[in-house]
């Protein structure tokens, strides 16, 4: 994947805050800033989508809910119907539509999240 350079000035207190968060996350400040730029721009582009930690890395999910985008897609694939997916979650249709729109825009990312959550060895009884 090609990359590009983004820079910007912020008040010093935010630089200190990001530096502290990078240390806590055991990553570099530039990697953390890059993640913030990517995720915030995506949250703006796809309202209702946020990001959280998961075993497979950062994961897109529905803001204010506990359901990942890949889980909405999985139900949509099982039911083969948006209406049945809406009924499954008992959500407003717009929430399902937002998740599916994100999944359509980033199919590889969603596949990786899904694989990371479901492809590990079967748990013992």
């Amino acid at each position: 994947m090609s990359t590009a350079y983004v820079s910007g000035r912020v008040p010093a207190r935010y630089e200190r805050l990001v530096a502290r968060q990078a240390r806590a996350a055991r990553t570099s400040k530039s990697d953390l800033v890059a993640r913030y730029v990517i995720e915030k721009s995506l949250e703006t582009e796809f309202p209702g989508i946020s990001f959280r930690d998961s075993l497979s890395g950062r994961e897109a999910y529905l803001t204010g809910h506990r359901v990942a985008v890949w889980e909405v897609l999985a139900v949509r694939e099982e039911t083969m119907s948006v209406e049945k997916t809406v009924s499954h979650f008992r959500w407003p249709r717009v929430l399902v539509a937002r998740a599916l729109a994100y999944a359509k825009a980033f199919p590889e990312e969603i596949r990786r999240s899904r694989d990371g959550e479901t492809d590990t060895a079967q748990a013992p009884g």
Partner: protein
Amino acid sequence: MPKPSPRKSAGRATAKLTQPRLLADENTSHRLISGCRRLVAPFPIVHIAEWQDGSWLGLDDAALLMSCAEAGLVLVAFDRATLPWHAGQVLRAGQNHGGLVLFRRSVRSTHYGHQARLLTEFWADEGHAWDWLNRVVYLPKSTSAS
């Protein structure tokens, strides 16, 4: 002291019976709840969207697991790798979780009747009597001896 009226006693008994012991996570459907109640009425399960006016929907895994421990609730969810991982993190941090019932990956998200049968049968046979603190169970249970 006057005896309590039979009607009021019956009301209290019903309330006690229906006190939720199981909290269905948001990746399960409300149809699991209705399926359980069709099989066993009353069945002590509530969906997270109905619990505390839905205020727990915004909790992350660790906060939800610890809140369940405080409320004496066992969390019912699909087996996604991150949730049991967070349960382990909660334990390593010296906190408790209230127990987890996880549907194995062989159980499809939309097979509500199958999920309801697995859960109600397990709960009636074993689960209702257990101390659930920090316990994790997968359904269907493994057929091999463990």
